[in-house]
């Protein structure tokens, strides 16, 4: 059985970022496994710009951003296998690969989970109505239009104000489709303010908050949807229903970290993030299996995925060299106003980056971190949005080796 120091599952921004950083830190035996024909992951279909502002200080398109990492990986002669799917992953870090060349089982000292995320579907939302053609997730529409030059519809309703939905509202408008509106069940948008501005406002596409699609009509092809208003508890308000004709319904209703392989390996997930429970070294509950990027928690910007993957690489390098990581017995608990935190465990000895999301929009508020009742971080936030990930550095000197951490929004 062939063995590697690190097997990285996924050749998108997280996987490539981790691979390049590992190689630079002297880890020689790396394998990146990518199921698609090209490296780059979802960035390949994100032809709009705005990527790289944090990481590179310039605005790149998705393919341009990906290309920098692809070229770097090539220059460093990192082994990347495309058209290769991981069928199985065990807790002993045995990886079964499947490609046209056959099945191959390899052993890994460390495994990096970098599988990204998938989109929530109509079925998961249980929207009633017919099963007509013309209902698809934003990412599927984006794939057809940007990678295959295929137009998916003419008269469009977008459900959910996730970033990809906003991008696709603009993209379809530019292709001559009529986008009748973006309908968001929450009382606030779930996409970034800059996308609301540049994708909707600039194109006069209306955004309806506290609205949702309650029924889908049309026998063969979508012909209309029923739109309803909802109350604060997101219950449909009777009497507010109206029908809106359309041939296309684009869903942008959430992203779910893709953890099928993680579960097979026995990795414990956080029900909040739907990603692995990790410590400050991005190590999961299974020793030697690490996770970063959207498979760990859904990010708002790819730049932060890259930065997270690069931080993970430091820890993986440690692990590959020593075969063990420091104990992380302290838990990091999301308290009042906090949706989730990453990491969920820490050692109390090393500095780490705390990532979090707030549960609802708040102005002029304060993020605090307490350890055993003692405040170790206090940061004012002018405008806290669920759409934006917040990150804070927790310095080592403020931490104790004892006592759980609680994060709250005041």
């Amino acid at each position: 059985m062939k063995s590697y120091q690190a097997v990285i599952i996924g050749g998108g921004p997280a996987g490539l970022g981790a691979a390049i950083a590992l190689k630079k830190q002297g880890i020689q035996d790396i394998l990146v496994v990518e199921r698609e024909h090209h490296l780059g992951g979802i960035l390949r279909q994100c032809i709009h710009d705005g990527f790289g502002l944090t990481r590179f200080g310039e605005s790149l398109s998705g393919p341009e951003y990906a290309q920098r990492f692809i070229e770097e990986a090539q220059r460093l002669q990192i082994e990347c296998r495309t058209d290769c799917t991981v069928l199985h992953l065990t807790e002993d870090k045995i990886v079964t690969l499947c490609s046209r060349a056959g099945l191959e089982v390899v052993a890994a000292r460390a495994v990096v989970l970098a599988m990204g995320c998938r989109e929530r579907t109509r079925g998961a939302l249980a929207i009633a109505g017919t099963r007509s053609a013309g209902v698809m997730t934003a990412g599927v529409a984006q794939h057809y239009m940007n990678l295959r030059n295929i137009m998916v519809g003419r008269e469009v309703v977008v459900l959910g104000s996730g970033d990809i939905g906003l991008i696709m509202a603009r993209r379809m408008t530019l292709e001559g489709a009529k986008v009748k509106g973006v309908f968001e069940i929450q009382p606030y948008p779930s996409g970034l303010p800059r996308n609301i501005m540049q994708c909707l406002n600039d194109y006069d596409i209306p955004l309806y908050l506290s609205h949702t699609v309650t029924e889908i009509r049309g026998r063969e092809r979508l012909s209309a949807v029923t739109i309803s208003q909802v109350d604060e508890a997101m219950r449909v308000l009777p009497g507010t229903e109206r029908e809106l004709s359309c041939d296309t319904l684009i869903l942008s209703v959430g992203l779910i970290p893709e953890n099928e392989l993680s579960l097979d390996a026995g990795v414990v997930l956080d029900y909040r993030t739907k990603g692995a429970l990790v410590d400050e070294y991005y190590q999961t509950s299974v020793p030697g299996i690490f996770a970063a990027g959207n498979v760990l928690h859904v990010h708002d910007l790819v730049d932060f995925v890259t930065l997270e993957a690069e931080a993970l690489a430091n820890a993986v390098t440690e692990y590959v060299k020593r075969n063990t990581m420091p104990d992380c017995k302290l838990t990091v608990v999301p308290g009042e106003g906090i949706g989730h935190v990453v990491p969920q465990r820490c050692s109390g000895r090393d500095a780490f980056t705390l990532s979090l999301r707030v549960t609802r929009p708040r102005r002029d508020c304060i993020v605090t971190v307490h350890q055993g009742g003692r405040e170790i971080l206090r940061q004012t936030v002018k405008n806290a949005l669920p759409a934006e990930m917040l990150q804070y550095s927790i310095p080592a000197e403020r931490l104790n080796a004892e006592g759980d951490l609680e994060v709250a929004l005041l």
Partner: protein
Amino acid sequence: MAVMNREFDVVVIGGGVVGCAIARELSRYRLRVAVLEKECDIGTQTSARNTGMLHAGFLYQTGSLKAQCAVEGNREFDRVAEELDVPFRRTGKLVVGFTEAHRAQLEQFMKRGESNGVPGLRLIDRAEMDRLDPTAGGNFAMYVPTSGVLNPFLYTIALAENAVHNGAELFRSCAFTGEIRLADGRHCLHTTRGDFVTRWVVNSAGLQSAMVSAWLGKPGYTIAPVKGEYFVLDKRAGAHASISVYPAPNPDNTFDTHATVTVEGNVLVGPDSQWVEELEDYATSPAGLDGLAEDGARMFAHMKREYYIRSFAGVRPKLIDPKTKKVQDFKLEAPEDIPGFINLVGIESPGLTSALPLARRVAEKIRGREELSLNETFTPYRSGPPRFSELTLERQAELIAENADYGEIICRCEQVTKAEILQAIHSPVGAATVNGVKNRTRASMGRCQGGYCQMRITQMLRQELGQSITEVSLSSRGSYLFTGAVRGGGEE
């Protein structure tokens, strides 16, 4: 596409599971057999929109055709599944009760089941239920060891492929529109694909069976469409369950919402029962889905939102007495006054279980009127394509070595390979739509619902069948997926 004046011995109207079973049974004889299906694929209506349950037969009036066919179909299905190479598991079933009234009902159905010839029925207590499946709801249950689950799409397709292999012909997108009698007594059937001349015509039109019956000279039947909605739950929910759990039947001998582990390991929650107006309206409703969520939780402890992957509806074609509204038995007749006509009306549940028994009875009717000689080349065996995800690593490796297309995973959730999709497209009863591929291979049936594979499947349909962008369809005619190329964009 038009087919002019094709001549057959038997034409079956309707390519559902019963029509395909009839064609398969008739292909045992030296008969020229055709099946006409109005949809662009077989088995897309009632045959595709059900629980996939192999019923035991305890529910139906003793002596009724429903009881006879269910018991007969149940008894033989291990052999049938082997002959046709279709997935099937005899999981057993729990019909559960909460109250003493339920207990009395279950006792009554146990008696009925015994007189229908259903083996092994017994009442069990909660402790024994826990041993069988602790996730089942209820305080006690009737245990039905012979119930099973099968894949209704694959069963219908297997019957059709076997029939075609044995010489039957299948005409899809071929809707029956009317009939005239020729001077020699044969039927001339008008269809959207031309005329078919035949000595025998079999009405197996399911939801449309009353209408087709009237067009063929036997009016007066009333089909009441009864809709049932379902949730499909993730295989991760299925991992918690091992047996189908049904509530005690209603006074009218129907079941409320139940939870069934499918042969592939998902859980189906449903169906409910709604008397509706339209025959082929498959929309789910907000109220229906809410009801399923509530009722389903009583049957299955893991009825959680996070496990939802899809919802759908089916419609049962119930033959009713128009005056009393009472549901009637299956109607299978060869009216004396209409020679060369075999009529099946109101084939609803347990139609899947009863398909082959009904088909044999159709063959009997024909044999009662004329001498039939055996088709010496008939084989009851059909082998389906290997299902990559269900094989051992060794076997998977062998397959890839033989055919590299097995090494290309197209559907990530269900691990369906390119080789399987190519076989689905090019089989003797091949798929030409996204759902056609899905029903044959499970590609896009998983939790991402085609988010990863649909683009690849549409690409393959175009490549393999030469479909243009706007011809690519989800399911039926008119369900186009694309409106054209992007502006100024040379495609791909």
